[in-house]
């Protein structure tokens, strides 16, 4: 039956889950390492590298987080194997969520410059 086959295309194997777990662990370690190099205990001993990475701290951190997000959603939440409708529902929600975050930040930055002088919060 076609619809049944669509749903049951197959999930990842246990070996694949282990691979993803290792990747997630490494990415988390990189996030913490990035913080330690830029602002933590390693910032003095690796001052040169810290100077290079610090301007990109937020961008690199968000990139690593989004990568982890993608791996969990695709493999652990089975979006890679389930019907596309579910990916569409989740993707649509994420787009709206991102728009909400950006719109609220933009609105408050605008209002802050308009109404509230620095230090009035």
């Amino acid at each position: 039956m076609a619809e049944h086959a669509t749903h049951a295309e197959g999930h990842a194997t246990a070996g694949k889950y282990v691979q993803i777990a290792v990747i997630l662990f490494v990415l988390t370690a990189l996030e913490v390492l990035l913080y330690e190099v830029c602002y933590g205990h390693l910032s003095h001993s690796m001052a040169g590298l810290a100077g290079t990475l610090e301007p990109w701290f937020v961008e690199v951190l968000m990139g690593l987080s989004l990568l982890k997000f993608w791996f969990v959603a695709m493999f652990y939440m089975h979006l890679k194997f389930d019907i596309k409708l579910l990916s569409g529902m989740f993707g649509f929600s994420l787009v709206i969520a991102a728009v909400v975050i950006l719109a609220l930040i933009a609105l408050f930055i605008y209002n802050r410059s308009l109404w509230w002088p620095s230090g009035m919060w």
Partner: protein
Amino acid sequence: MTTAAIDHGHDAGHGHHTSLGIDNRKLAIWAFIGSECLFFATLISTFLIYRGQSVSGPTPKDIFEVPLVTAGTAVLLFSSFFVVMALNGAQEGNRKKLLTWLSLTVLCGCFFAGMQVYEFSHFNHLGLGYSTNLFSASFYTLTGFHGAHVTLGTLWLATLLKDAIKGDLPQGKALNLEIAALYWHFVDVVWIIIFPVVYLMSLGN
């Protein structure tokens, strides 16, 4: 609908198959997860808007402890791995595998919730009450709601563990665990965002 489809729907834990080819409960949990994305988006926005706006301390740099939160993050990530292995066991009809990995998942959930209780009480002792400043209010609201989700997820998984121990979670009802696992993974991906945005970025300049 053919007999095969009816059988599948019955095996999946008395759910109903839809014309989309997936169980209606699975569709419902995805719709719920979609709504939760917006819920956490507003809380994260609030935290970001108020970031660096507090006129009095304590500030994140005064109180955050990276090693503790990193340990909590690692435990939550591992719990996602454990629950997906438990689901793998349930789908294979391997009861021992199911019980082992599901028990570990519940333990991880308890550890994370415990870590957050310790963290909150520690911060409170350091003078960071809920209404101390803008940072504290937005921080406690965001991480507190996430902690509540972890607690509910742990309770949900614990009830499934109880079913599994009693033998009430056979291969045909693996979808029950899959739905709980989807919720658990969502809680994990929210923390994947919260950890760098709330903790690491707040400690940076």
